[in-house]
């Protein structure tokens, strides 16, 4: 069934909430641009208001979301370039829902937490445009519109890193822009080829509707593999998957704090989300065919990211490399091609957004106070800033994957899925968990423990505003660790449907649930039975 047909059955006339998610921040950006530049507090108010309204709408989606429905919901369609069958086609399922919510959460947090310092007007305008673009990526079901949003987020991010970043930010911004643009260059050709081949094979009019193309699976195996490769390069750069990750440490380190939060929290998910929606869903056979490559690269990324993170002298760079490791987990889970793996990967996307976003915020707060991020120059901060130390501790433990916090649930599911599918990869990946504990605890120890000397001794603790900004993130970290059911039950139907879709279109492939009759524990029974 095409998305358009779904749309008709969904009943028109309801409020187009998904387009509103894109339009609201864009309108906010326009409003910021016409406001007088001399009133930064007014600009900030408008920016926060626009992003909070967007965030509120995305949270409303959580409750309005039909839990049992594996398909796309909140569909809306507006014709755009009718000649080519390109339309503003929006819809979300259990896979994109939480990424939309994550975006809706992180933008207001990032806007409230940090002031740009200079040039407030363009800063807020770019942030809001970025939010509009990201929302568009996560909710569009038209390949061209997806590509448009995927590409257009580069521009705000480029300016945010370049103008408000630290150090050699112009170079980092340019590197970021060129890497991602070069990566996605071939994707557009792939999209066009896909649509034309689909139209030829089915005799239908030219259309870029993801659902229609994915459900018909009309391409030859060879063509599908080529086009998947074109898509995969774009996503692999964006994720980033080792060895295409070299833009990430620079961009993260030189970006302003808000930029790092958004980059880590949301932008990296564009790639992993792309693999799910436009990799597995569109090209199940090719995804299965190439899965060993991505599994291996994912594991390499986990170990490599962890090892390199251990060596970093710069706290922000350490967090950046930890992202490489975490995203390796997500890739591993995705290409395990079973419900546990994909669900775990999806959970990790949200977890990584929350935890790493919070870590970048904390590093930014330390930097604001001490004007340095070098671990060697910090020490004993626990004495002067006990609240900050406590929050840092919780966030760090969540990033390590301590049971009871959110990171554990995702990582466990990923490892479970990977273990069922490819045992030895999971074994190596599990070593990454230990390494994560090593580099994060060691960094924590050097920064917060020990004697406090010089400026470290009288560093001010978190202000009320900063504590309030951290509060929702902390609440989520604990909530999702203790009671992930509301999240998982919304994801599961869509993930199950995806796995079934892959099974149906790959000859001789069935979801790797339990191998060799081994009993892997209760979680496998809970989540495996649906596949």
């Amino acid at each position, binding site marked *: 069934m095409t998305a358009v047909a779904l749309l008709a059955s969904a009943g028109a006339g309801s409020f187009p909430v998904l387009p509103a998610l894109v339009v609201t921040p864009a309108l906010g950006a326009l409003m910021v641009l016409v406001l007088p530049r001399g009133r930064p507090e007014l600009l900030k108010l408008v920016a926060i208001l626009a992003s909070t309204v967007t965030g509120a709408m995305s949270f409303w989606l959580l409750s309005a979301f039909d839990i049992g429905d594996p398909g796309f919901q909140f569909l809306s369609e507006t014709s755009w370039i009718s000649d080519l069958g390109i339309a503003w086609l929006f819809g979300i399922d259990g896979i994109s829902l939480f990424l939309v919510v994550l975006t809706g959460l992180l933008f207001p947090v990032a806007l409230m937490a940090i002031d740009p310092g200079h040039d407030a007007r363009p800063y807020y305008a770019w942030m809001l445009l970025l939010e509009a673009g990201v929302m568009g990526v996560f909710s569009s079901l038209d390949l061209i519109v997806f590509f448009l949003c995927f590409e257009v987020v580069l521009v705000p991010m480029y300016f945010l890193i370049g103008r408000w970043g630290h150090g050699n930010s112009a170079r980092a911004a340019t590197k970021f822009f060129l890497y991602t643009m070069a990566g996605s260059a*071939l994707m557009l*050709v792939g999209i066009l080829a896909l649509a034309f081949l689909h139209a030829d094979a089915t005799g239908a009019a030219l259309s870029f509707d993801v659902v229609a193309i994915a459900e018909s699976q009309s391409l030859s195996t060879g063509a599908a593999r080529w086009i998947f490769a074109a898509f995969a390069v774009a996503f692999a750069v964006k994720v980033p998957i080792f060895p295409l990750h070299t833009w990430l440490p620079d961009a993260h380190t030189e970006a302003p704090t808000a930029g790092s939060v958004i980059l880590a929290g949301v932008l990296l998910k564009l790639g992993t989300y792309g693999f799910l929606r436009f990799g597995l869903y569109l090209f199940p056979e090719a995804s299965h065919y190439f899965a060993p490559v991505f599994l291996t690269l994912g594991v390499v990324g986990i170990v490599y990211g962890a090892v390199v993170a251990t060596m970093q002298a710069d706290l922000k760079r350490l967090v950046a490399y930890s992202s490489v490791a975490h995203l390796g987990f997500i890739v591993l889970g995705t290409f395990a091609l079973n419900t546990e793996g994909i669900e775990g990967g999806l959970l990790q996307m949200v977890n990584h957004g929350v935890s790493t976003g919070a870590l970048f915020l904390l590093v930014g707060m330390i930097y604001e106070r001490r004007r340095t991020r070098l671990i060697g120059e910090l020490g004993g901060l626990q004495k002067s800033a006990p609240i900050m130390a406590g929050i840092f501790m919780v966030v760090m433990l969540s990033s390590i994957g301590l049971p009871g916090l959110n990171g554990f649930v995702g990582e466990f599911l990923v490892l479970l899925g990977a273990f069922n599918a490819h045992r030895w990869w999971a074994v190596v990946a599990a070593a990454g968990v230990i390494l994560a504990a090593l580099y994060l605890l060691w960094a924590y120890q050097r920064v917060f423990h020990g004697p406090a000397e010089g400026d470290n001794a009288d560093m001010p603790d978190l202000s009320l505003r900063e504590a309030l900004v951290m509060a929702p993130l902390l609440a989520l970290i604990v909530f999702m660790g203790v009671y992930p059911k509301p999240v998982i039950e919304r994801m599961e139907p869509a993930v199950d449907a995806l796995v079934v879709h892959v099974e149906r279109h790959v000859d001789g492939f069935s979801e790797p649930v339990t191998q060799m009759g081994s009993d892997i524990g209760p979680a496998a029974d809970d989540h495996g039975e649906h596949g």
Partner: protein
Amino acid sequence: MAAVASPVVSWWALVPLVTFAAAGFLLLTMASLVRRPPAVLAPAWTVAAGVAVLGYTVPMWSRVGSDGASSFLAGAVGVDASSVFVTGILAVAVIAAALIAHDYLPREDLPGVEFYVLLLLSAAGGVVMASANDLIVLFLGLEVLSIAVYVLAAMHLRRIESQEAALKYFLLGAFSSAFLLYGIALVYGATGSTNMATISAYLARTVLIDDAMLLAGLALLLVGLGFKVAVVPFHAWTPDVYQGAPTPVVAWMAAGVKAAGFAALMRVFVLTFGTHVSDWRPAFQVIAAATVLVGAVVAVVQTDVKRMLAYSSIVHAGFILVGLQAATDRGNSSVLTYLAVYALLTVGSFAVVTVVGGTGDSSHGLDSYRGLGRRRPLLAGAFAVLLLGQAGIPFTGGFVVKLGVLVAAVDMGSYWLAGAAMLAAAIAAFVYLRVLVAMYLQEAATGSEPAGAVPAGALVVIVVSAATVLLAGLLPGPLLDIARDAVPVLVVG
């Protein structure tokens, strides 16, 4: 005694040509009669002629739409929707060049009237090219267009670079005209006619046993026209000429001459020799791939913004060829849309370059753009839009037209060519980023001149082009609809 049959003349279709030519000659006459014409006369006159032609394309368009394409003057000139479309682009380019020049010429203390006269005559030549139905007429149009531009390139008498540019352009242009003529002669030898419609009909019903002469003629035509639109390997003149020629002239060269050149390429190859598409398409594909890649790679190492834009115009020419080689209706309309948006992008960009270039038309280094975002926010903002448009960033017209040519290429199954074009676009993005970095991420060089007001003419061009490029990116429907209807056809007279 039988009366001599005089050819049918459809005067209504000749209005754009006559307007441009007559406006040029009248301006020349007026200026020689009045002792000291007011400075605003010539630019206002030129803009008025451009606006008149642009306005006239509307009734002309609807007449062509309802009556269909037609040819007259014994089948030598044809008018179809595509020629009306290209005429509109030429009119816009004339208006923009005149507006930019209005401030530029007094600033550089250059003779005022001649520039506009030559511009109008050159535009008349472009209109002839866009509606030529006969290879000889095409050649006439090309020469009228080119000779005027040779002189325009040399207008800046006190800059040796301007003289150098003009000489280079003239010598190479004369050579390419010779190639074109020789190609026409060979085609005549092979088919027995210079009339495009006749040639096309002849080739459709005749299988040439020995088509060597025809193919040689096609190759020479490609060389001659390829030089005008500056595709690799006939591009070498472009950076030098763009760098040396007065900037308003460059705006006209990049927007107007290229539009006329591509219209001619389309009429000659896609329409006239459409039957031999399998012969010329491989050559076009190789040239297109080489053009986008060479243009993009070489653009990266430039430090002079005018040279950067010259190489970027080469990349754009390659992109247009990617659409042209498809030789389908979709390809043709993608070429026309590209020409329209590209004209706006270039006139806007060169208007900015004219303003930043300052007195002497010499500050074109990347350093002159440093800190522009702070010194002149409006100018820098509009330039940023235009540069992002040239880079093909989504929600600018630049993306829409790039998408168009890629769709045409992929539709034909030319995947590798589309891939090469996208790779080149990614490389070329670096060029535009370098300018953006200079404008926004670097502080102004010490001792740089304080910001003055942007002259009104250039300001109009910059703001209107940037706004239109954005609008075309957000709501591309109307433009695409018009271009879809602007199908070029050949009609036997």
